[in-house]
């Protein structure tokens, strides 16, 4: 798009910070929690990650859109972020395998965005002041009005969002031949989690978030998977209830991100809102069992409160090397483990994909018993 055609846009934060730039994507107004992601690759996977539902995603790498968009990089059927904030948007792209440019893609998905803002300044601001809500708009509002809108935007804390992104009907995804059957609870499951199972000869039946447990058991799974997803886990009593029921079966259980938090809650471990959160593809996590470090993809604004982890209930299996936060739990009184980060990557390093193998190994052992 030529520069003359650009339309002014504004981003206003709930604490009164206002920056101007130019509109990208859909021309309109959108708001949500403003968070940032430090991945230098994989913007499309990030924008379509259901865990980001309702958030404004600010990319710290300045050039976004360089390689366009391609259906093979979608993590869900649609764009999930509420808006996009960029420093130096690529209107053109280069990638013969792409389907379209990012701008058209965002517009088609009705995603509002802004480019040309000092994203680094905003990142530093959030880092100091903590995450907050913001509004992006290229419509006729005063800065004051936009700040007011940001203030009135629904806060993330206490917000149950999984039921908004989950599928409406259960779906079976099976490779040509499979060895095991896993029931996956979709709180906003990423496509690459599904792929990670099917590539390992596991048939997955993905259930809507609020599927009654009995209905799940009718499918007779060998294990349970609790997916990633957006929002605060604390109001998700329905999901914790399901986790508790699953425990009683004695079958192996595995949780990622929100799923990890739900499994923790079910064990009496508390989960709280983080000051800034972890979002990126470069977070070092040490596996406490092996002592090895994995470079991981992370995307969470809530985390397990370590002081509430009773060693009799769960062992902290993975720790973040940067800030010591809990990244994984090995439960003692049921057959389950979970991680806060994303072993399915996409985007990000593949260092942690072994966790899927471990889960399958557990299923194998369980079945052997």
């Amino acid at each position: 798009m030529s520069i003359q055609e650009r339309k002014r846009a504004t981003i206003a934060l709930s604490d009164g910070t206002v920056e101007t730039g130019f509109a990208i994507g859909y021309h309109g107004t959108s708001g949500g929690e403003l968070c940032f992601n430090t991945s230098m690759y994989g913007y499309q996977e990030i924008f379509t990650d259901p865990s980001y539902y309702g958030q404004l995603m600010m990319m710290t790498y300045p050039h976004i859109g360089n390689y366009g968009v391609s259906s093979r990089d979608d993590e869900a059927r649609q764009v999930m972020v509420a808006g996009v904030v960029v420093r130096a948007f690529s209107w053109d792209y280069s990638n013969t395998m792409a389907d379209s440019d990012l701008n058209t893609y965002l517009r088609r998905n009705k995603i509002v965005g802004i480019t040309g803002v000092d994203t680094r300044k905003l990142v530093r601001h959030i880092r100091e002041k903590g995450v907050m809500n913001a509004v992006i708009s290229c419509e006729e509002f005063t800065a004051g009005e936009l700040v007011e809108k940001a203030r009135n935007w629904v806060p993330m804390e206490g917000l149950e969002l999984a039921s908004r992104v989950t599928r409406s009907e259960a779906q079976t995804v099976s490779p040509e031949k499979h060895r095991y059957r896993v029931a996956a609870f979709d709180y906003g499951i990423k496509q690459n989690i599904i792929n990670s199972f099917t590539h390992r000869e596991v048939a997955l039946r993905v259930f809507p978030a609020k599927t009654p447990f009995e209905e799940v058991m009718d499918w007779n799974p060998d294990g349970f998977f609790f997916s990633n997803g957006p929002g605060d886990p604390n109001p998700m009593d329905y999901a914790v209830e399901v986790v508790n029921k699953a425990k009683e079966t004695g079958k192996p259980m595995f949780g990622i991100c929100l799923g990890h938090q739900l499994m923790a809650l079910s064990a009496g471990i508390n989960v709280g809102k983080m000051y800034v959160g972890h979002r990126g593809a470069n977070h070092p996590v040490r596996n406490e069992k092996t002592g090895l470090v994995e470079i991981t993809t992370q995307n969470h604004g809530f985390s397990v409160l370590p002081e509430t982890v009773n060693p009799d209930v769960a062992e902290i299996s993975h720790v973040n090397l940067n800030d010591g936060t809990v990244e994984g739990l090995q439960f003692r009184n049921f057959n389950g483990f979970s991680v806060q980060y994303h072993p399915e990557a996409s985007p990000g390093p593949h260092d942690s994909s072994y966790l899927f193998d471990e889960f399958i190994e557990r299923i194998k052992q369980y079945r052997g018993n």
Partner: protein
Amino acid sequence: MPRRNDINTILIIGSGPIIIGQACEFDYSGTQACKSLKEEGYRVVLINSNPATIMTDPMMADAVYLKPLTTRSIKEICAIENVDAVLPTMGGQTALNLARDLHHAGFWEKNNIKIIGVDIDAIDITEDRQQFRDLMERIDVGQCRSFVAKSLLDAKEIVLKLGGFPLIIRPSFTMGGMGGGIIWNEEQFERKVLRGLELSPIHEILLEESIIGWKEFELELLRDDHDNVVIICGIENFDPMGVHTGDSVTVAPAQTLTDKQFQLLRDAAIRMMRSIGTFAGGCNVQFAMEPGTDRLVAIEINPRVSRSSALASKATGYPIAKVASKLAVGYTLDELKNQITGTTSACFEPAIDYVVVKVPRFNFEKFPGVDEELGTQMKAVGEVMAIGRNFAEALNKAWQGMEIGRAGLGADGYEVLDRKHVRERLLKPYWDRSLQIRNAFKLGASIEEIHDVTYVDPWFLQQIRYMVSIENRLEGQTLESLGRDELFEAKQAGFSDKQIAWLLSQSATPVTEDQVREKRKSMGMLPSFKLVDTCAAEFPAQTPYYYSAYEGENESEISDRKKIMILGSGPNRIGQGIEFDYSCTHAVLAAKEMGYETIMVNCNPETVSTDFDVADKLYFEPVFWERVLDIFEHEKPEGVILQVGGQTALKLAKHFQRSGIRIFGTSYDMMDLAEDRGKFSELLVQCDIPFPRYGIASDVASALEQAEIVGYPVLIRPSYVLGGQGMRIAVKPEELTEYVEDLLKTHPENVFLIDHYLDHAIEVDFDSIHDGETLHVSGIMQHIEPAGVHSGDSTAVLPPYSLSDEVIATMKDYQNRIAKAMHVVGFINVQYAIKDEVVYVLEANPRATRTIPFIAKATGRPESAIGVKVMLGARLSEFDLSSKLKHYAIKEPVFPFDKFPEVKKELGPEMKSTGETIYFMEDFEDEHFRKPYEFKNLYLSR
């Protein structure tokens, strides 16, 4: 695992003299390694023959050996020093080869010396084409497809299988790859195949698919003893496959890869590193990727720090060599802190929120007849790195930092937009490809057209087209009509005030750089300074490493301490290399000791001076007037030190003077006087000092006239050049005419000098420091070759070996008189020619010269530090000025002629050497003296 306690003394092998392909990046890595290991309490022993390195300073290691880099020297050192381990990964291929030779000779094992940081046996695999191929196959990493042909018929079938031309042909078992090369088309096919089959003793050839034009990437890895691996940086080459990565414009991070593609590279790189042994240390992996597919081909793996890892360190802030050294002695990554943030782990992968562009610097103008086409053998002598918040900004900045008089990527009045010329320059890879792409867009070429001939990824072309669109919009405007938004957009895209002034001057009345600056300042449009922090601002960082950008927040806070700004020497090139970085680094340390907060400005990623823990504040910016002034106006230091950064910094002196900024040390007027032959000669006359007859000319006619007056042979030289750039000796008018015409093309604004050339004279380099009253003789170096061979190219001996006491006394007297007359405070170098016992002054340089580090190493006196402290007000009487030199030190130059086989070796007033070594000798029977003495007249040409 904490540090190893089974070793105490570690030997680090340096990389020796600067050569093309192995430059001062290894001083940077070696210096980091020394610091890193000493910090851990190890005893560090160092060998390097390059005197101009920081790593060979006495403070860097416990024992420093300035000895030839030979297995013999290493054996001698090990016999004395009780070495427990050797770290051979910090000194480039030179160090690795030495360690490997000694390994194969069983030396390390026999002496119970452990090799750390690399698996020596694995190196053999990485360097043997077939073994490497087999290994890659085993670990499922892609390779070029290839087939063996025993007949022309076989070959024809293979062409079909490989999908046509171009193809690479490699006859089996021929010496030195004879008969190998590229088959571009059908016409060449039969001839080359038959020749290859004939040449091969077993009549067999390998035909391999060509990956010329594929996208090229590099990854920098670190691994620890627990087999944890992290990728520090991914780098994408702007120039696709076919151009050596050292000669390519490169960009970090990779710009055109999807995450899935990047992860393919990452996974393959990790598999590759794990396949070549279990060592803990650094590694560089290079890949090619077929455009439009996910097909990946591994090019090579280097299990050591490299030029690219130095670049990656500067690009991300992550100190690769420092960490690699710690890993080599047993630490694991998770035990180390990220020094930039101070709080987070070193075991992570840096995230950057800016774009880094590296542009290589070449010196072809010094080698008439050289083949300028870029290929698989490196030809660049240095490089510039630039940081911006977008690609355009970084690319413009890089061109501003190149030291070739450019104000950015074109738009500065130097480009001739000739369609035919531009097309020719783009058909093959040349050093100025990015500039020619800009020119092609100016001429209306499309992205497709340019991509078709260059294979440069369209994304980069789109960015350059965007830059040209800014140019085109500015061209129709006047200073008055130019709106805030448009000006801001141009500044965000890295355009200099000078470029903008030129663009505005195209359609209206001429506009000056100063007017543009004034206008933008009146609008409050100043650059902000952003931090390089390894983590895209996710965590607070302490390290004061900045770059400029045009946008909101300025992160560089100003302290209330007294400050001083030191200008670096820009990219390495012949005539201005590591010696100046040496002095810059010492200037910073000396100024710190004098209580100043030091502010370093430089754009050369290979240097120690741009390490984040050298200066109090580092601005990684072009040493370009606008950028330097912006930093100055932000920091408001007391003044600047220009005399240590070679000609780069000195060229800015007049701007500082005009802006009323204090220049420490010798005054601007006197520095200018030294360059102004007329005024300088008047001064010599006043001091009663002889000098060769000379005249001043500005065109061919006046040159010929002057030559008649001063008498042939004559020496032609432009002012304000270093390394004798453009200098020639002419013995007759025809030659003079030719040279002057050449000179007027490259130095159009300059007047130049016609000196009478004193043939068969002895040349002497005399370095000294003057504190306003007393003169300290740093060193007197007598050249072995006659006057006329550039001092940088001559073999020189400290102290003189054949000068009479009278001559030496005369020189000292003259030196004193000149220093007094010029009111020198700080460094003063004078070059003398001695003929028939008469001492003539050739030139005076009131600054730190190339020979200062050599003298410092020979005498054991910190000459750079002394000079800088004197500039800042210290007296010579405060220093211990005794010399530790017992006999003689000889400076031996190293030339790049082996890289330019088509250029014949000739020496003259224009410098051609890339580096030098130091050698200590006891007497003149030593072959290091006898050999050059025997050949001293041989190569003198013009």
